[in-house]
């Protein structure tokens, strides 16, 4: 068991690409840390540097008290689960799990005991004699886990271990791995591109983009207080709606409102109190973030005040049973900053920014909603849960200008 510390660690390839840029991260003893980000953000490179499979170009990496920059992987006492599992095809499940112990010259009966323990925890006992190719995907995944846990290492490193499983199994294994980790209490670094995995499994989540750490926080904190547009847009599904808006102070009484196109949403006092920096923005354009969950069919929330509603034209209704996702256009400009454009590219570029004065927003409504395609719907907005970002720097607007200044 040990902490893992990145001290301004960078990875620079010979051609000059910076895969990871001065990464500062401390992973506590027994902590489950998830590195998440779109592909190519450097999360896997960071993990491989901890594993010793990738050289560290700059900075220092510590596991426990030891600086491991020049320690070969075999001496780092870490275990890794690969995306491909990398099970040794010519060895039985038993031998796959025992391989690391045999190398450490653990006595035979001790190996046997540990392998059988691991197998029973992972429900693999009856497959021990099989070869990996005769196992299902889920079983292979568990063998890979078994290979890691028998070693009782200082840290587990997992590189997208669930991405080759089907959706149902993934959900099951997600819970399994999280449970196993907390039972064993081994420091774990888990890499994924799936923000749901990140949110459900991690004690803390580190969001990365283009080789830089964006924010390191608990899942709830990431969701509630994203440090910038990227984190706001990346965490949460469906993604946060981002629209161009204008903050206005009402005369005299100290209350504020945002105008979205020709519509006005008045802001509650608590919101302004929680984000005092907003006061500097009155009369200026900013990017307003509305989570789909913060929208509701006003017809079902009769007590929603009239000044906290948005009128929208429904273009698509997706019924999910427990809720209904409604895609609707509002008369407002999309947030067309550089950051939003990059965010859309990161998501795969499927969405496009609408031309002219229309923006599509997504609302996650209660299943009783009667909103139908082609009709106009009144959406009640939970204005206390709105997010605001600086259109130039992309940073979230909270207490002071400097907060969380990572670009």
């Amino acid at each position, binding site marked *: 068991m040990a902490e893992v510390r990145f001290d301004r660690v960078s990875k620079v390839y010979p051609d000059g690409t910076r895969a990871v840029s001065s990464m500062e991260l401390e992973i506590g003893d027994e902590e489950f840390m998830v590195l998440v980000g779109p592909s190519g953000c450097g999360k896997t490179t960071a993990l491989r540097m901890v594993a010793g499979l990738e050289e560290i170009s700059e900075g220092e990496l510590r596991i426990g008290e030891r600086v491991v920059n020049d320690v070969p992987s075999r001496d780092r006492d870490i275990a890794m689960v690969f995306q491909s599992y990398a099970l*040794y095809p010519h060895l039985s499940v038993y031998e796959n799990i025992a391989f690391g112990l045999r190398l450490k010259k653990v006595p035979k009966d001790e190996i046997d005991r540990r392998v059988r323990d691991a197998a029973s925890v992972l429900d693999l006992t009856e497959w021990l004699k099989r070869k990996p190719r005769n196992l299902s995907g889920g079983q292979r995944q568990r063998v890979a886990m078994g290979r890691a846990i028998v070693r009782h290492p200082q840290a587990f490193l997992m590189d997208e271990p669930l991405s080759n499983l089907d959706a149902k199994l993934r959900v099951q294994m997600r819970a399994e791995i999280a449970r196993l980790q907390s039972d064993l209490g081994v420091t774990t670094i888990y890499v994924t591109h799936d923000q749901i995995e990140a949110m459900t499994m991690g004690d803390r989540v580190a969001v990365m983009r283009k080789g830089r750490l964006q924010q390191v926080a608990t899942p709830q904190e990431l969701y509630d207080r994203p440090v910038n547009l990227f984190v706001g847009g990346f965490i949460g599904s469906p993604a946060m709606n981002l629209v161009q808006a204008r903050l206005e102070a009402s005369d005299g009484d100290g209350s504020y409102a945002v105008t979205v196109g020709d519509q006005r949403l008045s802001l509650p006092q608590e919101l302004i109190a929680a984000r005092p920096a907003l006061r500097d923005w009155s009369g200026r354009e900013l990017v307003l973030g509305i989570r789909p969950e913060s929208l509701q069919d006003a017809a079902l929330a009769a007590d929603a005040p009239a000044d906290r509603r948005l009128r929208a034209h429904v273009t698509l209704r997706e019924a999910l049973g427990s809720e209904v996702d409604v895609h609707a256009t509002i008369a407002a400009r999309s947030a067309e900053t550089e950051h939003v454009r990059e965010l859309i590219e990161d998501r795969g570029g499927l969405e496009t920014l609408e031309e002219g004065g229309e923006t599509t927003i997504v609302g996650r409504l209660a299943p009783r909603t009667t909103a139908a395609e082609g009709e106009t719907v009144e959406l009640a907005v939970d204005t206390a849960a709105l997010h605001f970002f600086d259109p130039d720097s992309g940073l979230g607007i909270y207490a002071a200008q400097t907060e969380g200044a990572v670009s």
Partner: protein
Amino acid sequence: MNRYTKLTAMRELSFWVVGAIVLAPLYVLIVLSLKTKQDATASPFGLPTNPTFENYTRAWSSGGATGVPFSTALFNSVFTTVVVVAVLIALAAPAGYAIARRTSRLSNWIFALFVVGIILPMQLGLVPLFVFVGRLGLSGTRLSLVLVYVGVLMPLAVFLYATFFRALPRDYEEAAEVDGASHVRAFVQIVLPLMRPITGTVAILCGLAVWKDFFIPLVFVNGTDNVTLPVAIYSFVGQNVTDWNLIFASIVIAMAPVLIVYVLMQRYVLRGFVTGVRG
């Protein structure tokens, strides 16, 4: 779907025809090897009137003009082939691995050199090679045969290994390293077993090349007790008379080990070639 239609009949017929064409020489070979000399000259292609194994025993013990018994030649062939294949695998696998995993320019150049080595006919260097072997004092020895074969076949073996190692994902080695294995250990215990199909291909291609080669043993060990089967067979070809029945019997003896190995390892042979084509 298994109905016996006209089409099936045609197909079956064509199988028989092709089979007959392919097997005809084999028939001649075996039939002749069982005939006495008189019988052979009288009716070369008919069934033996009086089948005899005498040819086999004569070929086995006495040998031809050189006087090397066939049993000795068989031993020489087996010895040379086994040693050459073993040395090739022991050297070419690590060499190919190093070439495939090192991404430096040097390793690309070395790889290119090996490819050139495949293309160049060894006969070009025959005279200097012969002189060199002589100066080493190895003329006519089994060791000279082994050295020459290893040198001639190494480029092919290295090329095959390097190509396959390039296609092998690094994950296995990395997993072994994280598990605590040294590079050498990871190579021997994890990587090499994964290369079994290509090791089979190298063994078959190179083993057959050595087994059936006539030229190199003729140049390097002719006239000694170290000749291999093809040269020994040739010694039955006399200046004036050739005992075809003896030659054919010795050919059957020379084929037998190859056939036995093939039957025993058929599965691996085919897999090796299939993987070879795909990779």
